[in-house]
Structures are given as C-alpha cells and as structure tokens.
C-alpha cells in the first residue's frame, strides 16, 4: 500500500491550492475527489451538448499572492480579463452601471457619494486584508505569535485614525440596507451594491452583523472586488491549479469518493491515519486534510463516535443551508437586453432593496419567492469556447431558493421556478425565451448532490460573525487543525470563508507546514 504524507479530501480549488503548497514543500500528497473532474463548485461541466458552465461563474477575490506563489501564470492562468461592470438592470433600459471608474445612470450626488463610499470601504478593506491570509489565533492562546496577530490587528485599526477606526466599529455590523440608505438615494444602485454583501448567505439587506464583513472580504481580490471572467474561463483557473499541484508532484485521483476518514486511537488519544474510499480501498497517510464542508467532514466522514459531544452538536448546528440556485440557459444566439449594447457585464435584477428583502421573506419559510432576484452573466461572451460557435449561454445566480423546499423539489416545483425565471428574464431581454435551447435549474439541493456540499451552501457554512475568524467553523477547529490530531480542514468552512479566494487552502497549508 502506498503511504502518503498527506491525503487531501476534495479537489475543489482550496484542496488543489493546499495540495500545491504541500507538494512544493516536498510532501507526498494525494488528492482524492469524488467527481470526475477537479474544481468542486468551480468545476466546469457540460450541461447541454456543447454548452459548458461552472457553478461559480466569475472570479473576483482570487488571491494575487497565491497566483504568484504557485506560479499560476506558468500554468496558463491569467487574471487579465477586463473586469465586468456590475449593471443594475431596469426593464425600461435605464440601467445603473458600476465600474472601476465609478457609477453611471445615477444623479450627480449619488455618483459623488459613491466615490467616498468606495474610498471608505477600501480603507477598511486594506486594514483587514492581511488577516484573511492568516491563521486567526484563538483567544485562549497566549503564544507570542498569536498575541502578535492581535496586536497587528489592533494596530492596523488604530492606524486608520480615530474617526475611521470608530466608524469601522460602527459600520462593521451594519445591515447593507442601513449602510446604503445612509449613502445613496437611487434604489437600483443600492440593490446592486448590496449584492456582494449578501449573496450566498442566509441574509437579506436588513440583516445586521455580517454583510459588511462579507463585502470587505470580497473586495480583496486583484480587481478590488470587481468580477472577472479570467482568460480561459473558470476552467482555466482550475486547470492551472491542477497543473500547479500535479506539477509539484501531488497525485490526483478523480472519481474516488471518500467513505470515511480513518481514525485510530491508543491510550494517548486519537489520530487520523488515512481514508477509506467508497470502493473499500484504504489509503494511509500521516495526515488527512479535508476540503469538504465541516458537517460532511465531521459528521459523515469522521463520525461522531470519534468526536466530543458538545463539538459534534456545534458542528450539527452550523448554518449550512444554501439559498442560491443556478439557472443555466443554452441559447441559440446572443441575448439582447433592453438598453444594453451587449450583455457583457454582471447584470443584477433587483429593482430595489425591498425586492431582495421580500424575496428572502418567502425563503425563510421554506418557500420559493414569486419575485426572485438574480445575478446574470453571459460567460460565452468572454470565453466563446463554453458554447458552440455563434451560440451562447446564460448563467444566473438566483435568490432566494431554499435547499429544503416545503413539499420538496418536485418536477412541478422546478418547472414552476424555471418558468418564473424565464418570464422575469423576458421582461429585461425581450425575445430571450425563444432563444432557449435548454434550461437547467440547479437548486441548492442539486448543488449538494452534484458537488457534495452540505445544503448547497457557497461558503460551506454561513459567513456570519458567530461563524467567522477564530470561530470558523467552530472555535475548536478554527485554526485548520481539528480536535483530532492529524486531521486538518482547508475548505470554505474555515477562516476566512468561501468564494474563489483560495485563502483557506493557503492558510491550512501554512499551518501544516509550520
């Protein structure tokens, strides 16, 4: 039997990044992935003959540091695509557009406020940025290095100056709605700006305590939070990560679902010793790193009998219900949106903050909103290879769609939602329905089945203050190490969280190597 230094469960981007770092440091690394392709939620799959798409359709916070350290450029990744403008769609064509330069489609006062708003957020973002790429120390720890991280954080906040520091403490927990109402008048602008603070989570514009931090986290990428379809697409990024990992010597086994993480014990305690695959094959290693979500990792792969009772139940109580569905349309030709020369942006259908809030209200009770809100991208405009020549695909994130629909996700329920979404799109892009060759709806429940992510949650577990930083996913497992020696976490359920940032994979590798 082969013996490895490290087995990594799941070849999503975080698993790949962790593998690449470990392999570059000379470890014998095996990556095992249940699916037939690497990438997890960012893997590109054919949803209709000739049409390809990934659940994650843009990149906006991928760490430039990781790209550099793993020499992803050498492996064909270039984050050089022109950022997509964010467009708040209006059925009449009076859109609001947000770009790096500023915003258009709003009055002068809003445009001016936007510059200040943006500058302030960037100040806060810069203060926090280094801490996403670091292990967050526990509060109980007293080592010099741990205290240093806190001291650094305190210092950086102090360095903002008195006014900004105090303002940060106030703004950090504001709901998007309050933050935006304080700054802007235009409803469509507010709705579009709120989007990155709330999407992916169980929260709406009026929900306090987490959206501003989410927003600041998402502003950390190369393009300051602007969305990009990278050269060669999301596929290009995943391919580059696979190449970086395997190039450094890591082995990748696809179609190899892990049945359990093996844990053995003696008088001194337990230790993770390898994995058992669905096939029954057992592979030994000095350590196991899981990029699967915390609930899957602990409750299914490890099993509660190896864990503490309080801990197991804290893992059980993690909020892992996803509320974002994906709609994929194979289109016979390029869609036209009223008032847009080309639909080459990240388009948001949400007329105002209330529209988002009210869509959320239905989902709270396990229902699907009759007026969903969504984010739309036509990735084939940037990466033509995703669709047959001349044809296009539309990819949409739809909120709020509960993973556990009351009455279940029956064929009727799916059909009703798909049809409702097409009607809504038709209002903005007249004639779109006729172009549809095939429509695929992936509810959070489908994302769970397809990618093995509990609840289909983008972040594996809610990005909320009580599940962040040194409490992500819970305080006993927040520093990538877990209560079981030899078992580590490196997925979105660890600090700092989900999204294509790569930070959890990077941070976990650093902890393992130290």
């Amino acid at each position, binding site marked *: 039997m082969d013996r490895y230094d490290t087995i990594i469960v799941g070849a999503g981007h975080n698993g790949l990044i962790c593998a690449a770092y470990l392999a570059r440091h000379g470890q014998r690394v095996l990556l095992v992935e249940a699916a037939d392709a690497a990438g997890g939620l960012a893997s590109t799959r054919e949803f209709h003959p000739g049409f390809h798409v990934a659940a994650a359709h843009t990149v906006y916070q991928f760490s430039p540091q990781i790209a550099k350290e793993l020499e992803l450029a050498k492996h064909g990744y270039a984050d050089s695509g022109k950022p997509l403008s964010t467009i708040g769609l209006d059925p009449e064509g009076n859109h609001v557009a947000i770009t790096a330069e500023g915003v258009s489609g709003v009055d002068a006062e809003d445009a001016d406020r936007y510059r200040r708003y943006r500058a302030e957020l960037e100040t806060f973002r810069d203060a926090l940025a280094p801490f996403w790429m670091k292990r967050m120390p*526990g*509060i*109980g720890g007293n080592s010099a290095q741990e205290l240093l991280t806190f001291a650094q954080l305190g210092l950086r906040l*102090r360095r903002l100056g*008195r*006014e900004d*520091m*105090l*303002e940060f*403490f*106030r*703004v*950090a*927990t*504001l709901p998007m709605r*309050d933050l935006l109402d*304080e700054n802007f008048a235009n409803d469509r602008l507010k709705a579009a700006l709120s989007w990155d603070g709330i999407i992916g989570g169980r*929260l709406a514009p*009026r*929900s*306090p*305590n*987490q959206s501003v931090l989410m927003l600041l986290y998402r502003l950390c990428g190369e393009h300051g939070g602007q969305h990009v379809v990278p050269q060669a697409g999301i596929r290009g990024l995943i391919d580059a990560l696979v190449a970086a990992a395997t190039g450094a010597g890591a082995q990748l086994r696809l179609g190899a679902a892990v049945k359990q993480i093996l844990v053995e014990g003696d008088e001194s305690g337990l230790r993770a010793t390898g994995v058992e695959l669905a096939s029954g094959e057992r592979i030994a290693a000095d350590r196991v790193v899981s990029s699967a979500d915390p609930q899957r990792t602990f409750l299914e792969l490890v099993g509660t009998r190896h864990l503490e009772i309080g801990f197991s139940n804290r893992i059980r*109580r993690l*909020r892992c219900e996803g509320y974002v569905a994906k709609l994929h349309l194979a289109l016979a030709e390029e869609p036209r949106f009223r008032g847009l020369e080309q639909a080459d942006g990240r388009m948001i259908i949400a007329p105002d903050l*209330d529209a988002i*809030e*009210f869509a959320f*209200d239905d989902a*709270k*009770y396990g229902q699907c909103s009759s007026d969903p809100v969504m984010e739309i991208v036509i990735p084939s405009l940037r990466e033509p290879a995703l669709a047959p020549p001349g044809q296009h695909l539309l990819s949409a994130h739809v909120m709020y769609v509960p993973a556990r629909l009351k009455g279940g996700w029956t064929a009727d329920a799916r059909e009703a939602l798909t049809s409702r979404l097409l009607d809504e799109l038709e209002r903005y892009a007249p004639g779109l329905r006729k172009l549809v060759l095939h429509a695929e709806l992936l509810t959070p429940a489908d994302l769970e089945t397809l990618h093995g992510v509990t609840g289909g949650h983008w972040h594996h577990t809610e990005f*909320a*203050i*009580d599940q962040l930083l*040194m*409490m992500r996913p819970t*305080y006993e497992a927040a520093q990538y190490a877990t209560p079981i020696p030899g078992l580590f976490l490196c997925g979105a359920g660890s600090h700092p969280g989900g999204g294509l940032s790569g930070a959890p994979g990077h941070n976990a590798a650093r902890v393992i190597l130290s």
Partner: protein
Amino acid sequence: MKRYDAIVIGAGHNGLTNAAYLARAGLDVVVLEKNDYIGGAAVTRELHEGWHYSSCSYVCSMMRQSLHRDLDLSRHGLLLVPYLGTVAFGDDGNTLIDYPDEGAHYLELQRHSPHDADAMSRFQADLGRYAQLIRKTLMRTPPDPASFKPRDIREILFLAKEFWALGERELYEYMRFFTMSAADFLEDYFENDLIKAAMASPGIIGTALGVQSPGSAYILLHHVMGDVDGSVGAWGLARGGMGAISHAIANALREAGGEIRTCAGVERILVRNGTTVGVALENGDELHANIVVSNLDAKRTFTRLLQPEELPPRILERARNFKIRGSSGKVNIALSGLPRFKGLPDNRYINRGGQTFAGSLETMERAYDAWKRGTWSEDPFIESIIPSAWDPTVAPAGKHWMSNFVQYCPPELADGPWTPEKRDAFGQTVINKLERYSPGFKDLIVHMEVRTPHEIEAEIGLTQGNIFQGELTIDQLLFNRPFPGYGQYRMPLRNFYMCGSSTHPGGGVSAACGANAAREILRDLKKPNVVPDDDCYDE
C-alpha cells in the same frame, strides 16, 4: 434672570435621575418638561375615570437596585412587586405557563417536550452567565476604544478581565451569542415551537428586527438581564403604575433642592461659540445654565433642538442616520371584569399575570415581515399584563385594566401617515386577537386607548415612538451609543451632555443612563462623585 448650574431637558426617569444626582452634588438644577405631567414614558395616567394606566412602559425589571437604594426611592413611595405566572399562547391554542416553582415549571415544559424540559436548565445557566457579565457594564461608562487615556485603558482592561473570567469556551459562546439571531440561539436548546416562541419573545420587543435577524439574541438578553431582588429575568410592577417610579425619583430630586417645571417645552438649545449656554422655551422664555443635559433621544436632540451650523459636520449626519425605528404599538384597555383565557386553569396565580401571544417563531417573523411592508400583521405579537390583578390602586375594585404591547407597528404606513381611522383599525386587530383567545373579551371593554408610533411620538416625544430611544444593535451599543466617539455622555458641544436611553446602556427603565451621565458631569466639574459606581449585590 435666574441662572442655573444645570438644565435637564425632559422629565423622563433618566432626566429626573440625572438631575437628582446633580442636585445632590450641590448643583442648582431645573428639569424642563413639555407635558403637564412628568415621567416621559414611565407614567401613570388616569385616562378613564378610576382607571390609571401605565400608558407607555408597563413593567420594570432593569431599575438598578443600587440607585433605588441610594436615592431612597422606597421612602419616596416606590414599591416594586414581582408578578408571577406568565402564560404564552401558541398558534394552535396551546398554552405554556411559566410557573414560579421550578418543579412545576419543569412538568409544564415536559408536557410540551421532555427534551426541552431538560434543556431549559442549561439555557437558563447560559443566559444567566451572559446576563451576569453584561450587567456589570450597566453602571459604568463605556471606554473609548480609540483613546489612550489611562481611564479608558483601565476600563478596557476591566472588561477584558471580566470577559476572560468566562473561560475560553464561554468566551466564544458569548461572542457567538452577541451576534446571532434569537431563533438560531434558541435552536441550540429547544425543539418545541411554543417554547421557542415564548423564549424568543423578549428578542423582538421594541426593536425593528425579527426573531430571525442576527442581533436579536442580544435584544433578548437586554430584556432578561434585569432582575427583581436578584432573581434574574423576573419582572415587576410598580405599585401605583410606572409613574410611581418617576414620582419617587422626582421626590428625591426635590428633596435635594432641584426644581421641575412642567409645560415648559424646549424650543431650542442656546449655543455660543461651540458652548451650550441655556435653552429657549416654546413660550419664548430663555433659561441660562452652565450645563445643558438632554434626556431626549439623539435624533431629536440634534435635529430639532440644535441648528445645523452650530454642530460639527459629521454629527448631523450621524444624528440623521441614528437608527430609531418605530416598531411597537400599545393598546390600553379598561375592563369591567377579569378576562378568562381559553385553555387555562383558573386559579389566582396564573390567569392574571402576563400573557404572551407569541404563536410561533414563524408567526412572530411574519409579523415583522408585515412591518417591513409598512403595515401590521393580522396576527400580531402581543405581550399583555393585567396590572390591576396585582395592584389595588390602578383600577376600581373588581375592575381591571390590561396593558397590551404590540409588536410590530410601523412608524408610518405604506399608504401614508397614520390617521385616526387606521389607528382604530390597528386597535381592532389587537382586540380581535384577544377575543380569539378570550371569548367575551370585547364585552368587558369599558374604555380603550390605542397608541401607534405616531401617538407615542406626538405625546412623549420619542422619535418614531421607539421605546429604547434608538435600536439596540451592535452599531449603536456600548461605545457606539449614540454615536461612535460620543459614548461617554459628553456631546460635541462644550458643557453639553446627553442622559437618555439613547446613551449607554440603552432602553429600559433602569435609570442607569441618567446616573452614569451625572457621574461624568460631576467629573468634568471636578466635584466628588455622588453616584453609585456599581450594583449593590454580590454574585
């Protein structure tokens, strides 16, 4: 013209407390009140002959006992009586009685869920632990986190030490608790919906958040951190109504030589060169003083009593953005007899304490959804109590009055401002719901008074009728309250202070805001402190 040492604007309980301490320190103080009665929201009013309503605030648990003792409020006429036997009503007509006896309470919970009956002890221990910590901050001025002053650093260290004493696990649990929703917090313990609803109800009272909104767990704590005689989470009635509290404090103030003027609404605060020098009254009189203290809410103080040009630039923006949302209504009802509620045994302890018409978490959340849409739920959350069942002084013998606090009620409606017709329709919704749980209830009604946020604001001047003088969300708590950088009662004009619930520690009839502000004022005046520093019991 007479010149005072200090003018306090607003004779609510915090204003009176503040003035009482300033007077005790030897200052010549006047409290100015626009109404012809004192007490602000802590009042007893005879709105129907023979019936004395606590027309706004209706129960008390947060009143700091150190202040009660120090101001000698008992001698000044105050008696707080704990009441027992609150009942929560579920959507399905089920009832959950909060028996005072632990064993009986256990059996009652067990009737709904044996699991939850067991889980309750851990829930109470955890909540008690959180309450114990937060209670220690109530009588202290929050430290300024951006300051290097020894006093602020000392306070930060004090808080850090208290926090640390929780132990590592609880420290994390505490941070979790502080930011999560009441619904999520309760899911950690309970499975039964009525038990969860009953336990969640303090998490929405007075706030523009729902049980599912992150942050509502703290609101829950804010309501249960008080106590009556060391019994955490217990609530009491003031004999004679909530006005008895205000009157007792007013008596203490007068005894110390302070003065109260009613029908003396303040038109504006007078400012010379960035220093407050007095006030102009609505009747045109001017009163001058070295110190001006506002007991009004932060929004009202800065947007109504001061001119924009007199203020530093950012403050007006802060005041405008200050979250003070109207979310509650109140229906006071005079009754010809004691109402009987369905599904309850009729004994002298339980059919007449509090009633919580909570329904379920979903019903409560849906009521919040209605508020967000600028209307009220047809099935609103109502917290009721029949004070006359406990207090012989507030209604004629054999007759009763019922206080109904309604969550949620919007500050204005989607289709425009409140009108008397809409107000009455709101009141009708409430009594329709009560009639459902107590058939024949309507026949008992002798008089009723309906207060939407509009009436509350118009009468007692709380902006939007917000009972806390500002939302209790993290961005407006501790050193952020009312505004970042102004968490220590001193406001951005010289000699100008705030002492109302817009300041730390926030809403509730605690008198802590007023007392803490007085301590800071005396400090600035370099006078010896006469305000108790901490609460008077050992833990």
